[in-house]
């Protein structure tokens, strides 16, 4: 199984989970259906023309119906965002296999899960809405709830024990580490340049190579650059995890982010940055580190609020080996690779596990707050949306590309606060993809269907799709795709003793042949050829044998024969071996050699020889061996 991502856009259909009682949210009117019925008004609420489920947010799981997940042997994880559904798979499907991921992926993935669990668990919600999921009821609802897919499969968040159990099934791997799976294939993670420890995977046998490219970046940010060279010579390249915002240039977005932030603060407003606790935030903090003094923001407090804020900042400093060259060089000095260490030391950046406790004492406005969750449905960000939403001095800046910012804001409308959309998605865009494909030249490309056509909203932008030759094969949810290659060979080892016994024969210049009769041993999908066991010594005792004792045990096939028999030479040979009454008759296709005395007849044609004789075994064997002298064995 490749990756194990969780679709969290489902949460956008739910009301936010406020940390403190929100009068506004609790006063929202219940849904009245078109026919006037109000039986759903406890479950569904309306806000500024949108309908929301008033319940604990639920997530859309990966496809679990298509195949029995307990038969999955291995899950390969490409980055920490793509493992968020892991507990659902490892704990509920009978999965008994192994998960492979790099150390930063696991550590930061754990932080993301911890934050998710924490922000949902600390706001217990009594109500769990399920009536609206009834197919008959869902049909009556307004969009987008009406069109939401597989709502019956949506699940509540997992718990920390489940997270720990899931993570315990992960086997840590390093870049370019070759991992043997059941002797059948070898998998290797490669740096994908997108996030700390993010990987592309190569899945190969001795003859076939499949590359799985997911969430890769060619931009220079904090992670180790993408390893492109190792992707060459792929039979199939599976391409996914491209940028979600192909039209936005990440560098430009960072610039806009900084200027909007500075402007708001200068005007006395606060800035809210809904974000994940790891990833782009490191780059943003680095930009701000260079920017704040020149922009006159040195006295503005920056807060980073997350149950895992401290861990995330600490962990980022210890993965030197997974960072870009510049950052590695800093560690050699030895200095912390990320400048946020200095921001913390100089008290410019402060981090808190939540808005409760120390934060409430230290909190000074105007300020800049980084906090989660980017969906605006749970986490400390909900509190600040409620707190700052009413003032137009404040700004919320969206940097994470995973959620539509308009959908995210919907339950907070009407809103006076300024909203700026600066999505920073460093993953491959279509120009970079075509450059990459030209570089690594896979025989076939496989990708999700949506990459093979322009985005629905910009149907004229034919540049916003994958363009390669041959055209990519596309797949969609719950579809089975047959990959276009045929396996022809496998490796087998010939033991040295057997190799010594082989007699190669040059058939054509440069081509030699040897017939091999050997014992084939297969263990763990590895094949070995050994010398066949010596035939057992014939029993010396004169014990009377039963007829069946002689039955040949296995059926050792004799080699195939090739060549032709020149009649004249054959007759000479026969005569040399004491056959005196040899007669030759010509036939349409060849000759018949007659041994009159022995009542034996040998038909010789171009491609066949037929010996017809009485039951005289010594004679037959003698003739056989004489014929074989003229033929080659295969």
């Amino acid at each position, binding site marked *: 199984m490749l990756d194990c991502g969780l679709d969290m856009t489902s949460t956008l259909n739910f009301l936010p989970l406020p940390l403190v009682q929100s009068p506004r949210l609790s006063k929202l009117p219940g849904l009245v259906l078109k026919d006037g019925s109000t039986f759903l008004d406890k479950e569904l609420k309306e806000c500024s023309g949108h309908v929301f489920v008033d319940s604990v947010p639920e997530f859309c799981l990966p496809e679990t119906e298509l195949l029995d997940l307990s038969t999955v042997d291995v899950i390969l994880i490409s980055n920490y965002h793509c493992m968020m559904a892991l507990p659902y798979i490892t704990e509920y499907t009978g999965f008994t296999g192994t998960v492979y991921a790099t150390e930063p992926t696991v550590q930061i993935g754990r932080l993301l899960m911890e934050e998710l669990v924490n922000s949902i668990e600390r706001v217990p919600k009594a109500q769990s809405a399920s009536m609206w999921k009834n197919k008959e009821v869902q049909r009556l609802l307004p969009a987008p709830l009406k069109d939401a897919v597989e709502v019956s499969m949506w699940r509540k968040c997992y718990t920390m024990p489940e997270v720990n159990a899931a993570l315990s099934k992960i086997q840590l791997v*390093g870049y*370019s580490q070759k991992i043997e799976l059941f002797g059948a294939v070898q998998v290797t993670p490669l740096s994908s340049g997108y996030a700390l420890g993010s990987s592309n995977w190569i899945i190969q046998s*001795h003859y076939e190579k499949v590359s799985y490219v997911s969430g890769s970046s060619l931009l220079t940010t904090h992670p180790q650059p993408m390893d492109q060279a190792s992707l060459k010579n792929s039979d199939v390249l599976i391409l996914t995890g491209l940028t979600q915002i192909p039209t936005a240039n990440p560098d430009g977005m960072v610039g806009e982010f900084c200027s909007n932030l500075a402007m708001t603060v200068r005007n006395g407003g606060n800035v809210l940055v809904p974000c994940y606790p790891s990833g782009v935030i490191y780059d943003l903090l680095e930009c701000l580190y260079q920017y704040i003094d020149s922009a006159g923001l040195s006295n503005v407090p920056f807060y980073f609020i997350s149950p895992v804020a401290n861990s995330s900042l*600490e962990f980022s*400093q*210890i993965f030197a*080996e997974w960072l870009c060259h510049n950052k*590695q060089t800093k*560690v*050699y000095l*030895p200095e912390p*690779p990320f400048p946020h260490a200095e921001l913390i030391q100089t008290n410019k950046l402060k981090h808190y596990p939540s808005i409760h406790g120390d934060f409430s004492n230290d909190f000074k406005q105007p300020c800049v707050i980084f906090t989660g969750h980017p969906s605006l449905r749970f986490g400390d960000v909900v509190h600040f949306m409620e707190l700052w939403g009413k003032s137009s001095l404040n700004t919320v800046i969206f940097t994470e590309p995973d959620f539509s910012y308009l959908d995210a804001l919907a339950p907070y409308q009407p809103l006076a606060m300024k909203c700026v959309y600066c999505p920073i998605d460093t993953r491959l865009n279509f120009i970079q993809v075509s450059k990459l494909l030209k570089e690594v030249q896979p025989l076939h490309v496989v990708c999700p269907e949506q990459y093979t056509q322009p985005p629905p909203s910009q149907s004229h932008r034919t540049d916003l799709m994958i363009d390669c030759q041959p055209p990519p094969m596309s797949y969609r949810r719950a579809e089975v795709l047959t990959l276009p290659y045929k396996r*022809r*060979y*496998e*490796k*087998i*080892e010939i*033991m*040295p003793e057997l*190799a010594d016994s*082989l007699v*190669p024969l040059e058939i054509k210049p440069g*081509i*030699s*042949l040897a*017939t*091999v009769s050997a*014992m*084939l*041993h*297969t263990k763990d999908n590895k*094949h070995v*050829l*050994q010398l066949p066991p010596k035939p057992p010594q014939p029993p010396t005792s004169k014990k009377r044998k039963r007829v*069946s004792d*002689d*039955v*040949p045990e*296995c*059926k050792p096939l004799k*080699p*195939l*024969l*090739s*060549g*032709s*028999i020149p009649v004249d030479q054959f007759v000479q040979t026969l005569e040399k071996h004491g056959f005196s009454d040899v007669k030759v008759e010509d036939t349409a296709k060849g000759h018949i050699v007659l041994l009159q005395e022995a009542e034996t007849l040998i038909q010789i044609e*171009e*491609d*066949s*020889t*037929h*010996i*017809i*004789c*009485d*039951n005289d075994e010594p004679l*037959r064997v003698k003739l056989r061996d004489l014929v074989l002298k003229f033929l080659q064995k*295969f």
Partner: protein
Amino acid sequence: MLDVVYCFILIEGQLVTEIPKSSSGHHKDAAEQTPSRLERRFPDFSYITQNGRLTDFLDCVIISHFHLDHCGALPYFSEMVGYDGPIYMTHPTKAICPILLEDYRKITVDKKGETNFFTSQMIKDCMKKVVAVHLHQTVQVDEELEIKAYYAGHVLGAAMFQIKVGCESVVYTGDYNMTPDRHLGAAWIDKCRPDLLITESTYATTIRDSKRCRERDFLKKVHETVERGGKVLIPVFALGRAQELCILLETFWERMNLKAPIYFSTGLTEKANHYYKLFITWTNQKIRKTFVQRNMFEFKHIKAFDRAFADNPGPMVVFATPGMLHAGQSLQIFRKWAGNEKNMVIMPGYCVQGTVGHKILSGQRKLEMEGRQILEVKMQVEYMSFSAHADAKGIMQLIRQAEPRNVLLVHGEAKKMEFLKQKIEQEFHVNCYMPANGETTTIFTNPSIPVDISLGLLKRETAIDAKKPKLMHGTLIMKDNSFRLVSPEQALKELGLAEHQLRFTCRVHIQDPRKEHETVLRVYNHLKGVLKDYSVQHLPDGSITVESILIQATAHLEDQGTKVLLVSWTYQDEELGSYLTSLLKKGLPQSTS
């Protein structure tokens, strides 16, 4: 055997051991500058080539860890002798190695005024040739040669390396430690079954007493000295054991609520702790797990040392470099404190002959210092081995893990190695070598030959019961260095050759007065009874098949009481065909009706 023509691998430790040395067999520290004794400071690289460029003879250089006896000659080798190929080491080693080299250079050149030594610039240029490797990463050095690093414990960033060409491989351990300590984990390797394991054997005969006992002993001595108002000097090498002992003392001070100050000498050690913080993923499980809450290398009780502190009254503990008391701060402090019997010096590691450390450990109490001055040593002198090498038990454990076909011992004393060699040969039944310095050992391997087998042939053979070994037949096509095993049919087809079918038809006479079809039925029943494992069929046209062998019956032209069975088979069924005719010749059993 790794092919010497294609890949000569320079493994640092090995070359160090190749230096001819007359005196003690202990060849550690050969590359490290130690006072007065060593005439040759660097290994003799003319062993590799007399006149050619090193780069032409070496595929790569692998450095296992940052100790100077493993990397001390590197800038000399790459910049002065001249080597431009790749040098591989782990990230922490790459980070720390240049600092130790610079320190080494300073002591040798600046303090001692030696010439003909590498310069700071040479260290920098040398480090530019270094490629950092991750643990378990497979590094493709060239088309044939690949290397892979395994965790070795011992010091931060220490690694064992597997070196592989085709299906033949060597594992070189460098220095390693098989038991986790307070700051590092235990060495680990998978069952990689190398043809040769080259292992260090520093503690070849020692089964060391429990570490806990040694630690308790150490703490007791330090505690007693401090209690009676004495000062404790612990000369250490800046990185490695220093951190281990710091953690040990720090936790002890915390638990016992002790107030006496602990210092470590400035510069290197302080900086060193920083490396441990940033490379925390290389430390042991416990430290890694708790580092967010508490970084073990941020010491509360241990402060930086200032030269003036040495004269402060009252008890204190000082960690100072270098570890063998041959120069620098540790020696200065030693001279100040040596005269007082309340004080104590604890030597936590091995000392080379000729150093002050070695002298006091061997019982000397009057030392001749510079300018004929005599220093009387009244302070207590203790030796406690804390160096993190595998002991005999650990070495055996590693061999068990890796399952090598041959073992080669280096980095130890001949007598002890001999003992270990016997033990290894006894327990594992593998060849064990311990070449003397400068000696060449040739090890023969017997590699199997990988060939490509066509999937069609393989599937045909494994279709029935994949687990059971079975006899198979195929044709090996050898063309331009490629080896392919295919079915005979495919081989013929590929070569554009036609098959020549060789068929036999034998007439077998049977006495049976019954009608033909009854005879056939009797033959059928007979064969069916005898050939239980074969497919015997009676076809509608009156013939019988046994597998692909055809049997037909006709009446004898002259003798109605005799039937003629025509048994026909191809050469491929020779055994069975031949068997059938002889079986039928014996006649049919009488009982069947």
